[in-house]
């Protein structure tokens, strides 16, 4: 991160990363960290001590989202009981869930919208986390590498098996040619040729069977991985939809 070694660039980047926040929150955070770097007296090491700027931004966003989902927009109201960290599971319109204390705060639509926004931002943050995509790419590349390895092994075995076939045939033909000169040599030659032909046939056949089995396994695994990740996405989407509707 050499390009972020000065305060101006660092704060500009932070400002950019905090675009999901309301303007006021965004400026407050940038002001705080700007003053932090200035007051440290050593820009370089202060920036270094703040760590990865994306982690820093994520912690600001996550905490803001968290605080918002907890107390809604009216944050100055002192909470009567310790509030849950997530919106309640019971329907928003229900005055109180049966097992909630009577003074449990009811989520009004206004609060709900802000809690919703917070949840939405939390989901965005999860997606933005630079983990998911690299993992997907890694899994894909590993599967591809395995497929390539299997393919090359199969190819070499097939080549050997196929090479045995003309070899065997050639040997048998040579045996036939030398038949008038020496019957034992001819028989030996023909026999060896046929054995080679047989070996070639079996190598080719079983290579194909094994290859088919391995490829089926591999495609199954790949399919499962894809389906599982897609299902995860769908779950997330339905959850989001549930929250929104």
């Amino acid at each position: 991160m050499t390009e972020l070694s000065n305060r101006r660039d660092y704060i500009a980047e932070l400002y950019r990363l905090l675009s999901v926040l309301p303007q006021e929150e965004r400026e407050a955070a940038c002001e705080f960290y700007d003053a932090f770097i200035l007051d440290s007296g050593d820009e370089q090491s202060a920036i270094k001590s703040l760590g990865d700027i994306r982690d820093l931004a994520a912690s600001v966003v996550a905490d803001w989202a968290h605080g918002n989902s907890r107390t809604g927009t009216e944050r100055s109201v002192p909470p009567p009981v310790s509030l849950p960290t997530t919106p309640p599971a019971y329907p928003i319109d229900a005055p109180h869930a049966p097992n909630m204390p009577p003074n449990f705060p009811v989520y009004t639509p206004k609060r709900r919208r802000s809690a919703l926004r917070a949840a939405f931002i939390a989901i965005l943050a999860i997606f933005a986390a630079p983990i998911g995509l690299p993992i997907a790419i890694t899994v894909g590349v590993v599967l591809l590498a395995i497929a390539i390895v299997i393919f090359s092994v199969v190819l070499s075995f097939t080549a050997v098996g196929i090479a045995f076939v003309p070899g065997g045939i050639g040997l048998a033909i040579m045996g036939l040619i030398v038949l008038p000169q020496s019957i034992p040599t001819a028989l030996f030659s023909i026999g060896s040729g046929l054995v080679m032909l047989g070996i070639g046939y079996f190598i080719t056949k079983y290579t194909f069977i094994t290859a088919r089995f391995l490829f089926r396994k591999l495609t199954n695994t790949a399919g499962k991985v894809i389906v599982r990740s897609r299902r995860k996405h769908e779950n997330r989407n339905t959850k989001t939809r549930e929250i929104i509707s």
Partner: protein
Amino acid sequence: MQITAQGALLDLCVLSIIERKDTYGYLLTSSVKALLDVSESTVYPVMRRLMGQSLLETYDVPHDGRNRRYYKLTESGSKSLRTLKNDWYMFRDTIDEIVKDKSPEQEVERT
């Protein structure tokens, strides 16, 4: 250390430090970090939350040709800190009672 200051405990620490002396972001962050082994990014959200709950307020003091923003406790900040401190003492005593091998009552029972 496995036991860390989080949530209300962190609030308590930050409020206590500010109660002792009004302070600015960098100094507060570094003192909390020096004492509690938390990362730099931990302190700002706490401050922001405490500000949002009107437990803290700020004032600017000119410094080096710019304004340095100091944090101080509000009325309700002091009140909240008192409550938190009481909670903490009670909590601490309870944990102590559980953790210490011999409580006074046990001593009595044995004799």
